[in-house]
């Protein structure tokens, strides 16, 4: 793990809130939604686009000894108990294994089983083939609806609209809807039942939708990621059809587009949504388009937008240009603040 961040440096870097620098991992908090002073985080009858800005606390750190087909073995005899990372509890408490060094830094995977030293994983973003011996890994709980937004965080009836990434084309509507009930999150579209254990992955984005009552504040506390941002940008069809991806940049603070290493094709667009305006199903307030030489504001913004900052718990739509080939591209980037840690 990276060393302690001095409190003053951390505050200067993140500018998002007080930091607890007593531990070895940098921690902090981030306000989500509408962060305009005096405004609620989510106005009544309003959508805001959100994402995960911080990791949950590290519960294990180790080094890769070897890898197999869907497995990673840790060196040094970590002494795990069987299925320690897949506890049989309800709601589910899923764990993520993240590679924090090496070629595949930023790879994260859902742990589906474990022995005393080997985790069976389902990779969410990254290529397991590139993981090598001596790469460092950490294990932490995944963010879930119930942990990111505990009951009472938002008024009962508040919804989270999620996107499964399988919707072809542009302007893709929600595929799952979760509603805050008095005792837990409840899936109300695309499935049913207690949804407290539903995973919210870094690099994705989702919508929080209020009904008649606003959400006063949304504050996320956690560990500052000290490993690369990594997510998948998909194109589900052959050239001819564009593709929307609900994405985010895994960072508590903004990163400029010009420094974010977006694997963009000319014509790709970043759709930006204004979390400070009221309303549901809001259209993009601004669009930034990839040009052969940079990023250009083409709606709501004009001129060079290479300095536009993404991250900090906001969500975006990344629209792949119709001419792009079908398939996934992996977006990996080292957050600028890591260089100062």
């Amino acid at each position, binding site marked *: 793990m990276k060393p302690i961040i001095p409190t003053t440096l951390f505050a200067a870097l993140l500018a998002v809130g007080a930091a607890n620098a007593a531990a070895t991992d940098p921690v902090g908090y981030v306000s989500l939604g509408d962060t305009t002073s005096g405004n609620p985080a989510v106005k009544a009858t309003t959508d805001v686009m959100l994402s995960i800005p911080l990791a949950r606390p590290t519960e294990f750190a180790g080094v890769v000894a070897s890898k197999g087909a869907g497995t990673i073995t840790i060196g040094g005899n970590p002494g795990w108990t069987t299925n320690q990372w897949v506890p049989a509890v309800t709601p589910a408490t899923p764990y993520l294994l993240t590679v924090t060094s090496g070629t595949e830094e930023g790879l994260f995977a859902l742990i589906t089983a474990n022995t005393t030293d080997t985790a069976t994983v389902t990779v969410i973003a990254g290529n397991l083939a590139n993981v090598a011996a001596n790469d460092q890994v950490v294990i932490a709980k995944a963010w879930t609806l119930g942990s990111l937004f505990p009951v009472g965080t938002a008024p*009962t*009836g508040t919804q989270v609209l999620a996107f499964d990434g399988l919707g072809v084309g542009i*302007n*893709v*509507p929600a*595929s799952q809807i979760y*509603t805050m*009930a008095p005792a837990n999150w409840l899936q109300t579209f695309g499935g049913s039942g207690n949804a407290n254990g539903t995973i919210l992955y870094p690099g994705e984005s989702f919508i929080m939708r209020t009904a008649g009552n606003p959400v006063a504040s949304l504050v996320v506390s956690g560990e500052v990621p000290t490993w690369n941002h990594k997510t998948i940008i998909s194109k589900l069809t052959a050239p001819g059809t*564009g593709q929307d991806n609900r994405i985010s940049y895994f960072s508590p603070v903004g990163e400029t587009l010009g420094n974010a290493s977006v694997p963009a094709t000319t014509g790709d667009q970043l759709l930006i949504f204004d979390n400070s305006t009221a309303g*549901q199903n809001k259209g993009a307030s601004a669009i930034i388009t990839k040009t052969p030489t940079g990023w250009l504001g083409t709606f709501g913004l004009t001129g060079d937008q290479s300095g536009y900052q993404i991250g900090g718990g906001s969500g975006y739509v990344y629209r792949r240009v119709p001419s792009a080939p079908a398939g996934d591209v992996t977006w990996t980037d080292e957050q600028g603040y890591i260089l100062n840690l």
Partner: protein
Amino acid sequence: MKLNKLIVASLMALGSFTAANAAVTITFNAAFSGGLSSNLANTAGVVSNGLKWGIIVDTTGNSFLSQYDAVAFTQGTNTTLTVGNVATDDRLILATSLTSDSGQGGQALEGDFTTPGGNGGVDGLIFALANGVAAGQKYFVVWIDESTKKAGALGNAAFVIPADGQTVSHDSPFLGVDPVRGATNIQFAVPEPSSMLLGLLGALGFIRRRR
């Protein structure tokens, strides 16, 4: 500056090329903030879970008919309804889910925090704006009793196809305790016995010739 204009123009062209791709999500339950659908029943008037359901989109605004030709009620499909094998302006979009308990065993209540959901509810569906289905068109919720080939139909001023990409809740018709609504409004034809009989005779003839 000139270069930028050229780029913008070409990118705008790309954008318009993709505009045909569109989908919407419509839900019919708004737990703790609006209405919960319930009490959709079979032809006999028995509130039922497990019924196939969907919407009929009236693409030209002339309402729906009381009879259509036979339809394969395949969940998740979008079908042009026909009468006498002639296409109508109505499209049947079937949900991937079945009617179910919108209250999820008492876990969900309506926005008054008092009215429960119940059996015979419909959650929602996601579909493409394609094949003549477009924003602004009216639709009816339909639920199907496959044993009688009859469907119930519920219309409401709120039932209008939303704009491209939107996720909307059309729960308002389900506010309060819903009346029991039977599957009695639309009759879908059953496969004609004559055609089935012809097929059977043909098969018999084939078997006899082999002997």
